[in-house]
């Protein structure tokens, strides 16, 4: 019991260290550069304690739950040898987790407000909502396809850089044709798609698949799923801009 407590305290200290840079940056800019006192100090200390506690639980649960779950599913699929179901699973995982992703919903809402203000779309609530939903759907579709391609790559052992560089070339070409106002949002949408729960799960899935297939190296083949998930949304959002135009 005492040992467990010690481990927990050590983990808390680790999380606090992870957070220390943010605290220092905010304190320095607030006190020295902006020359203002910290508002609601008690609230901030309470909030920071929650963040430290939350990060500790998250990491603890990661090793206990998310990683083993992703790996055991990957092994089960590899043993079953049913590629079609694995692909369906990969697509569902990508699409399902992205369409409900809070940071994507936030960015899509912001983008549609800005688009309405810039007279790109009509300034009616329905038009704004349709635009935001369309954006979300396109990004989710893109992530679903990305995970499918990424899993296929692990199965076949294709080298990742040809696919990613090929993707870059397509993005560059599409940038030439896409309307100006979609480009910033399109580039950003690549970054916001992968949520905090999806990343550990997808990483464990990739590494698990690569370890259970003969001839695959988990380091070389297991990583890379997230890379696809941050590339394809750019293409799909630019395509969305082209269609709307």
């Amino acid at each position, binding site marked *: 019991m005492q040992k467990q407590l010690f481990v927990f305290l050590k983990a808390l200290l680790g999380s606090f260290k992870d957070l220390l840079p*943010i605290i220092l940056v905010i304190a320095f800019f607030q006190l020295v550069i*902006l020359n203002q006192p910290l508002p609601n100090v008690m609230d*901030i200390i309470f909030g920071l304690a929650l*963040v430290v506690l939350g990060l500790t639980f998250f*990491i603890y649960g990661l090793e206990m739950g998310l990683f083993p779950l992703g790996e055991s*599913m990957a092994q089960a699929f590899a043993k079953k040898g049913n590629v079609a179901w694995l692909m369906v699973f990969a697509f569902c995982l990508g699409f399902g987790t992205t369409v409900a992703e809070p940071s994507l919903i936030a960015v899509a809402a912001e983008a549609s407000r800005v688009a309405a203000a810039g007279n790109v779309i009509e300034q009616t609530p329905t038009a704004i909502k349709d635009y935001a939903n369309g954006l979300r759907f396109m990004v989710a579709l893109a992530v679903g396809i990305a995970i499918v391609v990424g899993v296929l790559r692990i199965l076949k052992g294709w080298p990742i850089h040809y696919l990613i560089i090929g993707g870059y070339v397509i993005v560059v070409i599409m*940038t030439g044709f896409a309307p100006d106002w979609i*480009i910033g949002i399109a580039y950003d949408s690549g970054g916001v*798609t992968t949520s905090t729960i999806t990343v550990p799960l997808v990483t464990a899935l990739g590494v698990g698949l690569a370890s259970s297939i003969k001839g695959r190296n988990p*380091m070389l083949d297991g990583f890379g799923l997230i890379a696809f998930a941050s590339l394809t949304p750019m293409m799909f959002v630019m395509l969305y801009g082209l269609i709307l135009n």
Partner: protein
Amino acid sequence: MQAAIEFFNVFKTTIIDVLPIISIILFFQIAVIRKPIPNIKRVGFGFFYVLLGLALFLMGLEKALFPLGKMMAEQLTAPEFILGTDTLPDVIKWQDYYWVYIFAAAIGFSTTIAEPSLIAVAIKANEVSGGAINATSLRIAVALGVAIGIALGSYRIVVGDPIHYYIIGGYIVVVIQTMCCPKMIIPLAYDSGGVTTSTVTVPLVAALGLGLAATIPGRSALIDGFGLIAFASLFPIIAVMGYAQLSAFKTHLAEKENKDEI
């Protein structure tokens, strides 16, 4: 008491957010794999801890860091702070915004260090590489990449260059590095671009970008306000590959020295 109610609400939202993932996993586990999950009790508890941790984390950020960070981003980009007057001159000197770049780099670095999904990938990379990749060094390399990316991205908003020149330039660097860096690191480097920007970084960085675009004349929030996240997902790729090249170069030098001694 109020905090407890607040926490309960955040916890509920977190659970609703992960419901799609849970239902997909359950469906495939029951309908396709048709085998019980090994150590189901432990995995279940682990999942619960992840949700609990995420809810606490989000509530704490919402309470302590986001309001302050967003307010600071607005104040630092306001003309009164930068020029000392309310009125903006016709021509903006990008040098005047130096505190914005420093803040951008500092906030990019520090939020990336605390980013939970990056921690997850770093733990996994350390495990898979048999300890060859140090989790902390990887996180610092990624955070440096984000810092440079966001600082450069803020500079771009101030001067108003089109975003695609920078991104395409970055792509070219990535392609060249891919050809000459150790093979093992490439997939991990590509991945590190996508994991940097989630829970902590996005809200703060988006506030900085929109604040800048709103206060500088001639910039539109539509075209210039977005794009910082794109910088934050491109530069870590370069930084991680650079880190690998540097370590490979160091080992090479050490080997050479050893040979010389013999």
